[in-house]
């Protein structure tokens, strides 16, 4: 739309183009079930992308330094845990768009397919290949097929933890779907 000439002649909506499309923080109307800490919520949101980027770094760096799919996945998962701890299940529902079992399945599928792929080239199962690339700025880059296996582990771990948050976390939350409040009161005495 924007590239059409008559659109281009329209005045740029100076005051509106950067209006947030969704609420940045939950408001009072949003359902939540425990006392909120504004500081924690804001901090969690600020840190979230950074932690995710760091987890991807761990995933890629695993080949030469400490890290790998397992650690990377756990770090990414902890980012979700942070968001959940800060905002509860409503916060989790806002940011998780993909169903966690799908993520688990995708991770498992990637790993298993990586393991089976060498058969197509006449190699035994789980054989690995290595490619070296020369990139103009970054220098030499080594990619092995095992990275895909690691990626599968990474996704699977994230999926498992988010699923855990969904069930063990939200499922045992006061007012959550798996919880009978009266029963809970009785249990606590």
């Amino acid at each position: 739309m924007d590239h059409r000439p008559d659109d281009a002649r329209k005045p740029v909506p100076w005051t509106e183009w950067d209006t947030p499309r969704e609420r940045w923080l939950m408001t009072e109307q949003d359902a939540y079930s425990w006392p909120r800490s504004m500081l924690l919520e804001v901090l969690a949101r600020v840190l979230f992308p950074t932690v995710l980027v760091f987890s991807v770094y761990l995933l890629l760096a695993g080949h030469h330094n400490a890290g790998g799919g397992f650690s990377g996945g756990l770090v990414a998962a902890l980012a979700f845990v942070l968001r959940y701890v800060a905002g509860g299940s409503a916060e989790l529902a806002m940011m998780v768009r993909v169903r966690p079992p799908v993520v688990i399945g995708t991770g498992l599928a990637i790993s298993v397919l990586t393991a089976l792929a060498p058969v197509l080239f006449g190699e035994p199962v789980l054989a690995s290949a290595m490619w070296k690339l020369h990139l103009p700025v970054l220098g030499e880059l080594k990619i092995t097929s095992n990275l895909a296996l690691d990626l599968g582990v990474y996704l699977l771990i994230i999926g498992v933890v988010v699923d855990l948050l969904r069930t063990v976390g939200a499922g045992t939350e006061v007012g959550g779907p798996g919880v009978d409040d009266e029963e809970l009161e009785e249990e606590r005495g």
Partner: protein
Amino acid sequence: MAHFALAAVLPLVARRYGRAAFVVGALAPAATLVYTLARVGEAVGDAPPLETVAWAPAIGLEFTARFDELALLLILLVSGIGAVVLCYYARYAKVDDHRTTARDSALLVTFAGAMLGLVLADDVISLYLFWELTTVCSFLLVGGDGVAKRLRTSATQALLVTTLGGLAMLLGLILLGTAAGTMRISEILADPPSGGVVTAALLLILLGALTKSAQVPFHPWLPSAMVAPTPVSAYLHAAAMVKAGVYLVARFSPAFADHPAWWIPVVGCGLWTMLLGGFRALRQYDLKTLLAYGTISQLGFLMVMLGSGTWMSALAAGTLILAHGLFKSALFLTVGIIDKRAGTRDIRELSGLGRQWRVLTTLATLAAMSMAGLPPLLGFVGKEVALEALFGGGTIDVLVGIGVAVGSVLTVVYSLRFVRGAFGTKPDTAPAAPVACGRIMTGLVAVPSLAGLALAFVPGVIEPIEAGYADLYGSDPGYHLALWHGITPALLISAGIVVTGVLVHRYAGVQRLGGHVPEPLRAQTWYGRSVDGLEFLARGVTGRIQVGSLPVYLGVILTTLVVVPGAGLLAGGVEFGELRLFDNWLQVPITLLVLVAAATSLLARRRLTAVLLAGVVGYGIGAWFVVDGGADLALAQFLVETLTLVVFVFVIRRFPPRFAEDKAYVHGRWVKAAIAGVAGTFVAVLAVLYSGYTEGMPEASRQYIERAEDETGATNVVNAIIVDFRAFDTIGEITVLAVAATGAASLILARSRKRGRTDDRPDTADTGGAADGSATETPEVRS
């Protein structure tokens, strides 16, 4: 294995184009047929082509395909009839039911691929894999959408019975493979082992074959499986899958036909099955069930011929396998047309169809004649050879031959019953309303039916294949397949069989008596009882073992941990290595921290405090790893510890904040303390012992470090081990993780679903599939 790839795509095709998916699916078996026909020459020879794909060479797993005469025969059958049935299903399926179309087309093509793999496989492991794949396909195809209880019961019965046999067969195959020292079937057969183990192995393998081919006393699953759509029955339960058991027997017979543990059960069960199947078929009113009992009877016949183990009987078996596949699929497809167009397949309600559908009647009659063994059809050719083989042999063979002759009389009777019941005009039943029977479907019935007719006139086309297989049993006595051998004893017996059969059919009183088996003697009754018994046993055992108390579980686990390796430790000489106080001064404060945290957690009165202190212990161990230079280990330890803490906190929200102080709790405390203390000490001792025992680095570790850079391109050895050297372990672990997570999630969510239903809130209970969870629901505001 293009079949599996195609099967994966078919649901998408079906969603868009509906029934056309079956035609697309039919391309796979049709292509196989053409390709196989092009390579017939290679199979019929002394050295059949052999292809091997290494699967996991380190442990000797590989997939070997061997394309010999027997495989060729079954491939022709499976792919030829597969193509016909898939095309037929394209007309048979409901136009708008895309879900069923997608499922069944994909499953049928997968099944065809599995059957191909089964008959081609030359090593016992892949044989077993494909074997079970056919079982699973059958289960899913019979079960359909799984809504009707009858579908589920039948599918489960088929699955239970055939899987029982399949597992027994796996055990037998492995025993046999171990005894022979090779997993290659061709090598086992070339040099058959002997001994007591082999006898057991053969009996186990036979159990698999007999259950799969619905032999007495495992037969009841086949008639129950007739609830499946007719094309599925035609393909799986007449032409292809039930032939798997016959194939297995045919495969192993050349080497073991003389072994008493092999031929006595095969011939005995086969004969019994043939008679019982024919007998029960006399009483059936449902055309499909009638055919199912006919199939059982015919499979018994095939078993008998294979068990006899002579050149002639093998030739007969080969011919009959082909003939049976052709006529039985034609008959099933006919029943499908009748069921679909006339609206019923009960012979008490059908009348006058023969006058309406002359072409279909002729085709079905041809097929039924082939079944009854009438000239000039392939069934007759096969039966001639069979009678010739049995009556030309010794005393046992002649006795078996008499049994087969009686079975054949029954076959003639139920063939007549089928044709008259389906197409005859009955005076006391109103003739069916005129409907078209469908040209395409009739045309597809014509393919196998006319093939049976044509092949009878030119048996030379198929003879080399069957003779090639029969050569495994000995030398060629100079017999050739033909319609006319002159006036031979076999011909006279054949004529006698047909005349007796017609007489029996005319004499209706015998029919009324026929087919009745008293309730306590029926195999179905016994199946029901054994399943009930198993369930009772399982409930009892589970109730005793799974008491539902976490402390008891933990106690049992820890006691086992101490007792089992501890006993081994005490039995062997134990030496402590040289102990050092510390390697690095940083270890001292960390150790103190861990010790203090552990001791304090014992004194904690609040659950949260105890959990946090346990967390401190975990972090302390992570710190140890850092000090010792295990960066990867430390990272994982810290992350896991954090996650564990979080999960703990989630869970203890549900618990009372303090530990209980009542009598019942305090009572068992000392026992618990003792178990925990002993287990802790044991682990500590073990750790010290282990670190004292390792002299330098083990060989494996040194190899890992040496090879990591060159073979995986990784300088991080830990990572190289995880994703390369021990990648198989990794895959296994993540699979376990996925299963555990899904299981835990289901258990927790199941609780909420159940409650939603009792609260009469179907909207929250039934929204969405498995992934529906709290995340998408708005938590209720606490009152």
